[in-house]
């Protein structure tokens, strides 16, 4: 609604009429588009019952979709835990006073942020077995790739979060005699983590979406099980893709809603005078 205030004045009688006309015109246009898609589906017989029927059978869900969803969420959860650890370690590493810690940590983070995740997964899955001379587990190839990429993204977010903690916090900690590692561990990281919570949850959305890359190296996640395998059995690739897309959208919008709720909560708590400065600074991240 704030956008309206910037761009449009409150509508007067003429603007109101114009808006109604535009609503009708575009409403009809959108209905036309919807009908065109419907007709296109109809022409190719995509509304036929047998194509949709499998999704009312329990076995489709228990044999394909739910195990696939489980593998997707499992890989995302394990990767999230590892990525958080990776992120904290490398964020702190990049803030180190020693150049021989700071530079390598920075190089690792920048490198993995710039390399496409698929390239990384291909290297881990097809390349690493040549070096170690034993087969790579698909699950770990997916999780490792996700960890390296998302860990690097989180490391940057954490670094910004640690920067955003007011300087008085670390100065006060040094003043009462804390060591460098204590200041980081007990003062900066906990405060940064709290203000970064919404960012971390939003990163979960990226993680869940990126597990779908596992399909390309045949990890049995939701796209593989719910679309590829279902379509192989029932010949309904369009229908399966729509159902699976809806599942992904439901999972990810709940995560986004959670992130929004956390952000509002942090902000609300932040209105208390003592933490106001912290949250204000955290918002700039």
């Amino acid at each position, binding site marked *: 609604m704030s956008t309206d205030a910037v761009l449009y004045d409150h509508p007067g009688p003429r603007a109101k009429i114009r808006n109604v006309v535009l609503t009708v015109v575009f409403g009809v246009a959108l209905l036309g588009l919807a009908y065109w898609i419907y007709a296109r589906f109809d022409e190719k017989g995509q509304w036929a019952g047998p194509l949709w029927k499998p999704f009312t059978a329990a076995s489709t869900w228990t044999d394909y979709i739910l195990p696939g969803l489980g593998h997707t969420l499992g890989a995302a959860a394990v990767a999230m835990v590892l990525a958080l650890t990776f992120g904290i370690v490398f964020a702190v590493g990049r803030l180190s006073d020693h150049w021989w810690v700071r530079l390598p940590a920075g190089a690792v983070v920048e490198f993995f942020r710039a390399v496409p995740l698929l390239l990384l997964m291909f290297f881990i899955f097809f390349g690493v077995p040549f070096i170690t001379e034993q087969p790579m587990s698909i699950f770990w190839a997916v999780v490792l790739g996700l960890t390296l990429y998302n860990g690097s993204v989180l490391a940057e977010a954490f670094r910004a979060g640690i920067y955003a903690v007011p300087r008085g916090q670390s100065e006060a900690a040094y003043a009462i005699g804390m060591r460098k590692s204590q200041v980081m561990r007990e003062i900066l990281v906990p405060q940064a983590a709290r203000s970064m919570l919404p960012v971390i949850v939003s990163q979960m959305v990226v993680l869940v979406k990126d597990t779908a890359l596992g399909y390309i190296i045949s990890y049995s996640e939701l*796209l593989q099980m719910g679309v590829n395998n279902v379509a192989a059995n029932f010949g309904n*690739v369009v229908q399966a893709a729509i159902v699976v897309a809806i599942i992904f959208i439901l999972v990810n919008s709940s995560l986004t809603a959670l992130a929004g709720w956390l952000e509002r909560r942090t902000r609300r708590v932040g209105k208390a005078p003592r933490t106001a400065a912290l949250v204000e600074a955290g918002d700039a991240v």
Partner: protein
Amino acid sequence: MDVFSDPYNVDVYVTGFLWILKLTAASTVGALVLGVLLSAMRVSPVPVLRGFGAAWVNVFRNTPLTLIIFFCYFGLFSTLGFSVSDEIDLNNYWLGVIGLSVYTAAFVCEAIRSGINTVPAGQAEAARAIGMSFRQTLTMIVLPQAGRAVIAPLGSIFIALSKNATIVGTIGLMESSNAMKELINANGDAVIPIFLVFAGTFAVVLIPAGYGFGWLANRLAVKR
């Protein structure tokens, strides 16, 4: 590095990155045009358009790109018979461009919308108070300020787009990640140099690009 002394391997490498370049170029244009249109819809006073823009963003931002590209090929092309070109590579290429544009447009739309939101309402109110028309307010007051705020997010969106272009490999285009896979499978003794060359190419281009966008955004930022 003797893997890359073989002209065939160099050819695979060059072709792979040429596809990435072409995919990025066409999808950047597509995503920008679609994204601007969508953001115009999302901030318009017409509820139907706002709803359409919001629905588009929610659907495509929350669906994995792999699924979208997969659908473009197996759904749009194989099942619904939507074909762009008779040549198989070109057809896959354009299907990939459609998928990438449709997906990235959702992010472009959100970036532009939040850019418009960074302009304080008082700016537009002051413009209206001195008698500026809607068009004048938009082109002289709101867009110049919003445009500067949008550089950094748009920059990271297009960097992400060029990396996402590798996903078009799912539908069989020999882009860089498939090219790397082929080279690795053919040259098991030189896995690390191959990876470093492919990943390094991305890093050498994208890391400076990231800093460049950051510098530009900082330089053009509206000081408030």
